[in-house]
């Protein structure tokens, strides 16, 4: 299946689900409120417009004449699996933020990400992973006065 047809079909399916299942979940209780008669259009209008637009454009893409190949779509499964692994690692990083705190979670994530990208020189990985998150936290908290996630691991000066 050509990449464009596949993309168009996915857009159509998601749009239909959005229109049939999603939009009707928006409550229409507001219509019973005082003054509601002045509102000629309600909160469902815009989601319907966006959903119908997506559906029509998805159909246009899926049924139109595809031009050329979308090369990246054909990348081998092993490579794609490694990229998906990185995405999962990023989600794991986010999950660890509240538990460990910004500095430890970032240090751990940086080690794993650098290793994932292929960096094997530990004389580079360790100083960068240990120092940069700490310096970033210092800059955010003390110079910019912005809070970063605090976890169970105490970090000096942060």
């Amino acid at each position, binding site marked *: 299946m050509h990449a464009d047809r596949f993309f168009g079909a996915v857009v159509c399916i998601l749009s239909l689900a959005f229109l049939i299942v999603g939009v009707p979940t928006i409550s229409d209780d507001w219509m019973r409120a005082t003054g509601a008669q002045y509102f000629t259009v309600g909160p469902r209008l815009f989601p319907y417009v966006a959903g119908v637009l997506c559906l029509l454009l998805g159909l246009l893409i899926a049924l139109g004449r595809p031009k050329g190949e979308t090369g990246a779509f054909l990348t081998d499964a092993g490579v794609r699996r490694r990229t998906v692994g990185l995405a999962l690692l990023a989600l794991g990083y986010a999950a660890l933020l*509240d538990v460990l705190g910004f500095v430890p979670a970032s240090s751990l994530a940086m080690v794993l990400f650098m290793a994932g990208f292929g960096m094997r020189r530990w004389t580079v990985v360790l100083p960068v992973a240990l120092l940069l998150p700490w310096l970033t936290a210092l800059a955010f908290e003390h110079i910019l006065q912005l*809070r970063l996630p605090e976890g169970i691991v105490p970090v000096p000066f942060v």
Partner: protein
Amino acid sequence: MDLFLATLTGALEPLNILVLAAGVMLGIVIGAIPGLTVNMAVALAVPFTLTMGLTQSLFLLLGIYGAGIYGGSVSAILINAPGTPASAATSADGYALAKQGMAGKALKMAIYASVYGGLFSTLVLVVLAPQIAAFALRFGPPEMAALLLFSLTVVGVLSGGSMAKGLSSAALGLGLATIGADPMVGVPRFTFGSFELYDGLAYIPLLIGLFAVAEMFTQAERSFTGTATALTLGGDVDRNRVTRADWKASWFAIVRSGFLGVFIGVLPGLGATIATFLGYAEAKRASKRPERFGKGAIEGVAAAESANNAVTGAAMVPLLALSIPGDSVTAILLGAFLIQGVTPGPLIFQTNPEVPYTVYIGLILSNLMIAAVAWFAIRPMMLVLRIPKTVLYPIILMICVAGSFAIRNSVFDVYVMIGAGIVGYVLQIFAVPVAPLLIAFILGPPFEEALRQALVGSEGSVVVFFTEPIALFFMVLTAIAVWVTARRARRGGMPLEG
């Protein structure tokens, strides 16, 4: 005239210039960090102005404002991570140039175009503030809805590649923008009982995810397949020079984007982001070789940067003349004025003329200061390209995580950023442009509000969009944009469907 000269003499005192320089440097640094916005930078600086006089406080805030918008282009060009939403269009060609070893050229053109845009809009502010403010007031809900529809259409159809894919990306952005409380009656939509979703998705994590995180995934995939292209610092000085040919290609785009930026800037609620995308799209539409856009067209960088900085002075027009803040930064500036005991409005030109004079001088000096600071910072900034990608991308991710969290102190926004990164990566695989998604997401809420207000006013009749002259003008422009693009597509210029 005497008062102007007295204000100018006072403004040029060393301490004031020092404060301005500090504001410019802070603005460039904060603007360049993905996740930290100009709004945030200006808001952070307001408490410091409590102990300052009027001139110093205005210089500090105006310096941050202009420099913050410029600063966003630095990270957009160097690492494809726009520091601010207004720099997202700059990354398309700026990053492409950086990948070809011409980051220096892109950064220099960004400075020239930004400074031109800033100075041009200041000139407009000086000459035409009251008249333009009066015109902007003629924009009611129908006019605003028609203008926003035109903007969305133009961004969708001219985003590059297939028109259907560009528009579907914009439609997806509109859909995402409906998450959260309804803007008119407050009904929650697609919140699934989540407190975080009640306010909707924040656009900064979405921006960072769609551009920076998606780029990280793409680069990771390329390094896994061995097709990664090395970013070169550009030891070749000649290739990083802005040549006469570059000027020839860019000057008209800079001038036109300056006008567009001023026009958008004076209209409340639009801001630099839409100006940038319109300026970029218009430069692409008018180009004899539109296929070069997105692949390293220097005029793409010039158009985007001129437009977003032209908003800075123009946004001050409704603020000074009518006391109406056009965007969140000018709303914060209004607060800073009030702290100083000054109330902007039509009478300010009679009662406190030194205030508009200080604003004019501050804007002019801040633009000159941006040029000076940015020029000397180009080489150090380009050093970021020397960092190996295997180290650079994890660092970028960490800064993006910190920036996304800092917006609302919420890990939820970090998840949104990563989710947007995955969506951006998938869209890249299918050659779907992500810029229309972002711009539609930003413009969706004001568009919905204007559309529904217009329909409420007309008792549900859409005729209102065709009877008001300004609204009709933009509706006709929208139809022409679609028609011209479809015609060009049929003639083989660009695909319509796939």
